[in-house]
């Protein structure tokens, strides 16, 4: 089993670490998790895999602080938000009222919570349901409320247990973009999803829960860029002031950066991360000028990716 975390860029202090964590239910129950070590650093995106009933959800609940480990310990407790797989919303509130309450629980003051509730419902295409009683929401709409709840107060650690389940296609993509945004902003995200294409290529690390232990995913998504390219990519051409360096955030998001002229750069970025890259470029000081954005399908790029794959293997 893997004891070393690959997620310690420049010795960043982990937001939260699990040390020899084990969890079982009842005094004589079987161990659901055993001997789990995991460090979650700021900005880390971690995918957890495993067959049904292997303890993925338990691991996520321990990370979210909803479950205490039976043995071992947890160091650190960042501001945490959790999204469950199903959110049966038998609550006597409208969506906006519930989100305002939860925003306040997450530490926002009331006016900020009201604004954040509206913004996040709008972002997930559920603004029209803001005044609808939760009990009347469809399954997908209540899942949107559950997702919005977690994002209200910019959590430092976002734990998503199959949060995409039940969302419509647009909301699923939006949630992928939000995850990338959050990690680019320095939050850590840990997620489980049954769809292997979910955020394909983006996670910094993939772990599998096998027999209660945590194994670092073999060969995929371990931070090597070439291995990460499995989904569609976007090409972004942008120009910075002469002599400026590529903003580090943008450099991290892109899987390939190529200088094409004085100050002009071509970034290749996995599709879910393209918005975050543009935000990083436009938000840099001084800001970069975005010349063009397009699908990455030209032969040059394919060659470049092929070269990268050869390099890494």
């Amino acid at each position, binding site marked *: 089993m893997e004891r070393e975390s690959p997620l310690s860029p420049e010795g960043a202090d982990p937001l939260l670490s699990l040390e020899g964590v084990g969890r079982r*239910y009842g005094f004589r129950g079987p161990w659901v998790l055993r001997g789990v070590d995991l460090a979650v650093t700021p900005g880390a995106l971690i995918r957890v895999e495993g067959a049904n009933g292997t303890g993925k959800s338990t691991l996520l*609940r321990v990370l*979210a*602080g*909803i*479950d*205490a480990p039976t043995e071992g310990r947890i160091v650190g407790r960042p501001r*945490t*938000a*959790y*999204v*469950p797989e*199903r*959110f*049966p*919303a*038998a*609550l*006597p*509130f409208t969506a906006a*009222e519930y989100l305002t*309450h*939860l925003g*306040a*629980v*997450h*530490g926002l003051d009331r006016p900020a919570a009201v604004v954040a509730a509206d913004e996040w419902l709008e972002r997930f295409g559920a603004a029209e349901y803001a005044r609808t009683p939760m009990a009347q929401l469809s399954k997908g709409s209540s899942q949107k409320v*559950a997702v919005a*709840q*977690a994002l209200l*107060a910019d959590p430092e650690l976002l*734990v998503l247990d199959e949060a995409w389940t039940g969302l419509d296609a647009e909301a699923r993509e939006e949630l992928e973009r939000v995850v990338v945004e959050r990690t680019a902003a320095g939050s850590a995200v840990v997620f489980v999803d049954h769809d292997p294409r979910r955020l394909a290529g983006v996670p910094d690390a993939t772990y599998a829960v096998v027999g209660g232990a945590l194994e670092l995913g073999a060969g995929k998504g371990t931070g090597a860029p070439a291995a990460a390219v499995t989904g569609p990519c976007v090409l972004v051409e942008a120009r910075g002031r002469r002599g400026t360096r590529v903003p580090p955030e943008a450099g991290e998001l892109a899987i390939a950066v190529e200088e094409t002229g004085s100050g002009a750069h071509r970034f290749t970025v996995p599709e879910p991360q393209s918005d975050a890259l543009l935000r990083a470029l436009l938000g840099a000081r001084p800001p970069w000028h975005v010349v063009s954005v397009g699908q990455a399908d030209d032969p040059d790029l394919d060659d470049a990716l092929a070269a990268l794959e050869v390099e890494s293997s």
Partner: protein
Amino acid sequence: MTALLRYQAALLVRSQRWLPPVILYAAFLGVGVQSGQPVLDSLGYTAAALLPVAAWLVRICATNEPPAARSCTGAAAGPGRAHLACVLVALAAAGVLGTAATVIVTIISAPTSTAHDIRVEPLPAGAAGLLAALACALLGTAVGALTNWPLLRSPGRAVPALLLGALLALVVVGSPARAAITALVDGSQRGTIPVPALPVLAAALCAAAATALACALTTRRA
């Protein structure tokens, strides 16, 4: 914590699940307390009936959120703090209910001893009644905290345990609630007004210990 308390209080009020215990309490007092009866006897009855109501209110608050929503709140604020807010809101609701009932009963009752021969001042009698009601609300909260999530999760066990616990808390020798009620009834017979402060203190300790145990177990028994 303020946000959690507001959220839990709004849940309780909006859910309207507080209606059955309040109606039952009112009906119980309507049957058992009549105007013109000796004040301390009636106040003892009022306090005793509050104990199961307080335990019931804890059950309502502890089960108001579906588990998925409880997980969201727990991740945001810590499951222990979230549960503490549940219990405190239930206790506050029982306190409001008990205070209202005590005030009304004090006003409509006769300011006399059981034999109607010695005068009992209504104001200090009402204060003694408030203390007894507080002791019962606190002990009922302790019973509710010990017989609901996270200690007992299936309704099939929780509800009988709650009823049995409430009954025992009223009749077992050494129970602070029983001590407070007995003090009122004895005082009524002698025509003196007791100050059941010690039972209140003991009941508060019970409630604090039970709540601490329940909050500590929120992350252990999911």
